[in-house]
């Protein structure tokens, strides 16, 4: 499949489809929009990519897309809302899967079409965000597992809360610590790794970062700085896993 981008009319057509899907006016995914020459354009550098049948989680998607870019020796347009909207429709079964009765719940438009007027909320896009996170942590992607471990269509509140705190999401040490605390030895989100945890974690890290340079610290060391009771449960579970290893 050759990847393309929507022009302005294409984005509007996709937004109309999302609206109709939400109100039950349609259930048919309009894949013909993807190649309609009046709604789409070629990317400046052509990129060919075959979509995997299954994408286990956000990490798998991000790695697939980065590989496609590497194979074409180019980077994807991180800020191009036309491209990300087009890709959302191309991967609609992954970002908005149908239930057993064939119903789909697309959620807010921002999950599929980047809201270019509000850069702080761009992270809500279900595809641009995992790609961006992997790009940010491309030197060691595993440290970002905490926000990439979920399925594409269910990023979860923890992901949203961490994404909303740039001082954390851009900090390698903070992301290593969050993954250490929230992802278990099997690579699954640990019980208790909730949005509430993320809010408390965010506030605590903001305070600690004034005293401690988290990026130079091993997660098992920086975890020892977390004293609040609600955080300690996660610290103890993570330390237990580390000891077993």
């Amino acid at each position, binding site marked *: 499949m050759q990847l393309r981008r929507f022009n302005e009319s294409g984005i509007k057509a996709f937004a109309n489809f999302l609206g109709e899907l939400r109100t039950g006016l349609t259930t048919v995914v309009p894949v013909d929009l993807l190649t309609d020459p009046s709604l789409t354009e070629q990317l400046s550098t052509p990129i060919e990519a075959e979509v995997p049948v299954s994408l286990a989680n956000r990490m798998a998607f991000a790695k697939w897309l980065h590989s496609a870019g590497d194979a074409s020796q180019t980077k994807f347009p991180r800020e191009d809302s036309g491209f990300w909207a087009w890709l959302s429709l191309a991967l609609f079964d992954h970002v908005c899967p149908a239930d057993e009765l064939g119903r789909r719940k697309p959620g807010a438009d921002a999950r599929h079409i980047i809201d270019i007027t509000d850069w702080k909320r761009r992270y809500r896009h279900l595809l641009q965000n995992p790609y*961006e996170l992997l790009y940010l942590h491309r030197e060691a992607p595993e440290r970002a597992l905490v926000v990439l471990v979920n399925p594409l269509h269910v990023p979860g509140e923890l992901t949203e809360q961490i994404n909303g705190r*740039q001082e954390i999401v851009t900090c390698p040490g903070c992301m290593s610590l969050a993954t250490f605390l929230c992802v278990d030895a099997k690579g699954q989100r640990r019980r208790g790794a909730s949005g509430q945890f993320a809010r408390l974690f965010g506030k605590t890290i903001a305070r600690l970062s*004034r*005293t401690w*340079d988290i990026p*130079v610290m091993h997660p098992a060391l*920086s975890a020892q700085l977390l004293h609040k009771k609600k955080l300690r449960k996660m610290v103890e579970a993570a330390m237990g896993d580390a000891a077993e290893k």
Partner: protein
Amino acid sequence: MPIKRLNFTNRVKLTREQANVSIHPGDPASFDAVLELSHLPASAATARVFIEAYHRATRMRFDYGTVASLTPPPPAHRLLKEFDDWKDVSFRIKVTNVTDAPGLILAWANSIQPKGPDDQPHNDLVRWRDAELDGRLWDIEFDESGPVVLVEKQVGHSNVGQDAHFIAAAYPEILRRSLEKALIHDRTAAGDDDHWFYSWNTGYLQPTLKLGEIPDANDQDALRDWIEEAVVSFGRKFRPADSWLKVAGVKGAD
């Protein structure tokens, strides 16, 4: 005056004379750091020096060696290649213990706005940026360095912000929303010199508008009253309505 944060760590705040950054524009831009750390105690000799460049969701970190042996990365490794525009980039400098209390910050300088090629610091109170605003003329957003006023790019370049009509209509609201962000949303205190509001307050609001003491962060009503007083004082001092009349040349009521 309420102080929200107390420094119990003996962390030293580096002045701009001791820690500063200069930019060399280019594609990508690069930077030089000026570091004068001889005043730090001998126990800090082995501490490592890191420089972080940041803007929104982008951050780059550079290892400058130790206090006793500063070793800047070679120029080819001091490129700000992750950033679209060097004018957006802020810096922080950390001196970090890596031996007996690994990770402890011994000294730092935060929110450094780098010097540009003409040696002019970029210290405007607000910054301007073109944006797609879907029909609106302007909006405002905030990052670590303070407010950024967005102007619809089809209207013209963001220098619309220098237009007298725009100044008259928008500046008081820009001030109000910036103060609400700092004092109500961020709950920063007057003495918090890590927040952009500190330089606003000490460098502009107090000297220019001569406002009263900022109320306690927990007294939201008093804070809102203080903000309104600041906006009213701004109007009295700079007379934005007069600016409008000067360029419009007519009185609507006549």
